């Protein structure tokens, strides 16, 4: 009995002792608070800036590997020399497919022998032309396998110019560094230069959203859920009168989205 009582007393004393200890600690921290506020905020600000720099500067550098094209190419020089402008080297085949990246066949007419004094040309003729080997160009605008893109539909049927999607590449004197995402294996030109995904020009990015942006303009402008109500149909007809080609009466082929059908761009 007495042993148990002793135990109980000890426990009570222990508990009391703790209480005292904790209260004294509280006093200590209260005293320290007055001095530590500054460093904590400073620490927070440093952390914030560090993570911002990490995300916006260091991460993109780590994400993309930099590759040089096998040889450099001067668009300005070539455009001045050839007769048909861009179409001398980038042309449609008869069956409607597009020969985007030139093959040796197109170069060989002029570059059978060395024309100038540039190092890249000498390298080109010696390494590729004389050996009959194709240049392994790195393609900035290569899309994933599930994408169907028809140059004929955009250029021949819809009369869109090259610059809208490819930018002023014809005015460049050097080929830029090819940046490949280490995660996806696609070029940085697909995601866009800005890591945040902001774009100023139509040619800044080549993601699905960028295709959809244009495709949406040419189909429905009214929300997919509201499109079936009579009121919205009336609005659609009014829009059709004011600016033809933008309303629901000109909607795309998809039952699910009332825009262009998914199969238009996916394969």
């Amino acid at each position, binding site marked *: 009995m007495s042993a148990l009582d002793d135990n109980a007393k000890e426990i009570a004393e222990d508990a009391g002792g703790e209480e005292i200890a904790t209260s004294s600690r509280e006093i200590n921290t209260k005293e320290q608070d007055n001095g530590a506020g500054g460093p904590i905020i400073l620490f927070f600000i440093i952390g914030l800036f560090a993570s911002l720099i990490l995300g916006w500067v260091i991460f993109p550098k780590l994400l993309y590997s930099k590759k040089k094209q096998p040889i450099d190419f001067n668009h300005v020089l070539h455009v001045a020399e050839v007769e048909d402008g861009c179409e001398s080297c980038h042309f449609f085949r008869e069956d*409607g497919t597009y020969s985007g990246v030139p093959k040796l066949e197109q170069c060989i007419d002029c570059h059978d022998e060395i024309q100038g004094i540039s190092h890249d040309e000498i390298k080109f003729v010696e390494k590729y032309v004389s050996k009959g080997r194709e240049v392994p160009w790195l393609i900035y605008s290569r899309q994933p396998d599930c994408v169907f893109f028809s140059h*004929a539909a955009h250029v021949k049927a819809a009369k869109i110019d090259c610059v809208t999607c490819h930018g002023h590449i014809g005015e460049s004197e050097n080929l830029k560094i090819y940046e490949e995402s280490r995660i996806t294996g696609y070029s940085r030109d697909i995601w866009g230069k800005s890591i945040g995904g902001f774009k100023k020009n139509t040619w800044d990015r080549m993601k699905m959203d960028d295709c959809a942006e244009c495709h949406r303009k040419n189909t429905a402008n009214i929300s997919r859920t509201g499109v079936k109500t009579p009121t919205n149909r009336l609005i659609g007809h009014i829009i059709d009168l004011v600016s033809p080609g933008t309303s629901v009466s*000109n909607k795309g082929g998809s*039952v699910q989205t009332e825009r262009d059908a*998914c*199969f238009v761009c*996916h*394969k």
Partner: protein
Amino acid sequence: MKHKKAKKYGMVIDLDKCTGCGSCMVACMAENNVPFRKDESNKLLSITWMRVYKLTNGKPFPNTDICYLPRPCMHCEGQHEGHSPCVTVCPAIATDYNIETGIVSQIYTRCFGCRYCMASCPYHARYFNWWDPVWPDGMEKYLSPNVSPRMRGVVEKCSFCFHKYQLAKEKAFMKGRRELKEDEYQTACTQACPADAITFGDLNNPNHAVYRMAKPDPKHHGRPTNPHAFRLLERLGTNPKVYYLSSREWVRRAGDNYLENESIAKKPAHHE
């Protein structure tokens, strides 16, 4: 801007001509990069966008008769445009009905493999990829670049060779046309059939062979008015775009679940 008359691509398969050779299946597999496995003995796991079934009238020897029935995706239109069984249930918008062509598409990158569409399809036309495709050595080089290969965990099905439509369109654009001629867009199975049993074209165009053969009745959801034509499970109201022709009564009866004494007379679907 007036809306152009939409197309409704469909197929007519003459079962009296079909010899069951399976050329359509082979052509389809090759054209669409359909994956296969080393061991295909379990047919429940095989992927065949086009599959040839063997039907029999079940009678003893002197009267026995068989018929082969190739079955692609039916590209059902449903009771109103795009009300296909699979399109209406897809929670991912991975399968879609194209109003311009009447083709039911399947977007593999969008599909997350719930297989609801497979459950809703009454024709078993949809298949699930249980494994990533493994091609025999060197065969990747023979894959068609116009059809993306699928990965494990997605559903796939016949697309009426939609990429052939896209390529035919490209060619037409080069000639300054927007409309396709009948022979410019044909599916791989149609072209491969040595017996000429498969015909493909626009069911909305009276000049196309498929229209003349099936004579679809637009007032009754495309029900064929040719007495020899029928569609699979007609009375479900799925409004398929694949028509079958046969001069044999038992074959036409096999197209739907008729009762023993029920007449096959063209009765409208249940909703009328």
